[in-house]
């Protein structure tokens, strides 16, 4: 039941990406951007990715640090 709920939730989240893309998109090229490159769009996606894969990213970083013996 929980798995089915997860699958449904994933489906809905994925289905909302194309409409979100339409809503967020600014219709400007980067060269003509009034924000001068401080684009909120990649930041939103980055935040979503960090929330989704935060634990995995943390474990990867800790593995890298451990392997390279940075703390020793």
């Amino acid at each position, binding site marked *: 039941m929980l798995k089915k709920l997860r699958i449904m939730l994933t489906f809905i989240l994925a289905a909302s*990406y194309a409409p979100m893309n339409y809503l967020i998109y600014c219709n400007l090229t980067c060269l003509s951007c009034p924000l001068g490159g401080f684009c909120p769009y990649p930041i939103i996606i980055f935040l979503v990715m960090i929330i989704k894969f935060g634990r995995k990213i943390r474990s*990867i970083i800790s593995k890298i640090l451990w392997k390279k013996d940075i703390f020793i």
Partner: protein
Amino acid sequence: MRLINAFKKLSINKWRYIFWIIGLIMFVAPFALLTRLIYFTIGNIYPPDLHGICFRMPFEWIFSGRIFYLFQYPIMFGTVILALIIAFVLGPIFCGWLCPVGAVSEALSRIIPFPYRLRIKDTSITRSLRYGFLAGWIVISLLIGLGYIGISSICCRYCASSVLQSLVDAISSSTVLYWHSGSIIVLIFWLIIGGVFTVGGRAWCIMFCPLGAMSGLFHSLGAKLGFYRTIRRNNVKCNNCDICMKVCPMWAIDSNKSIDRTLCINCKECVKRCPNNAFTMVWREIN
């Protein structure tokens, strides 16, 4: 002769990597040989590059009811139909063997060692991501067709093909094509997060490519008729080493070692890399 023998002995999926290069030469400018050949045959229309043959726009035209575009751009329509027919009969081998977008990101993903790369282990979640996005994309295409949304296309807002072409142009001719917020997202997701930092490097193909999703559907539909080439696992030979899971670029093999047909692209990585030869490529038999 010695070189040929050495090449034959290579245990890696060598023909696939050769086809990656052929795909790049066929579709991506400055080469774009296939596009040039078609334009030479029918008369030059556009600059010959990866944009000349878009793998996604024809789907949007169909779903938005703009069928007349298909007659206006017969090359795009023909390419996509051919890819789908191949997917129906032989499996989505265009995605696995020729598509330059997937080839570049998959090649880049080999840089980082396996433990530092991300993947979704549950194939049902991967499948729902893929077809959830396709559903949302079809809804937006329908809304464009009905005139509720005043844009010409949703494909171009997250197009990895145009980003690849822009990157190659920037390297080969120092010209910069259009860059916008959508291309930055695609560059980050297709090449960096979904490419370098994922297992197989095809996260963009799995989640955002309508041609890939449609090919997967045609692949599983073809299975019902039973005449396509598919990968089969021998339970006796398998010792559950999980190497197949680690090398599958489409995350199509789950922990039970069952292969999800809607995700598999017949790339034969599991066949070539399995130490026990538990995977074989066979013509599917009708049960």
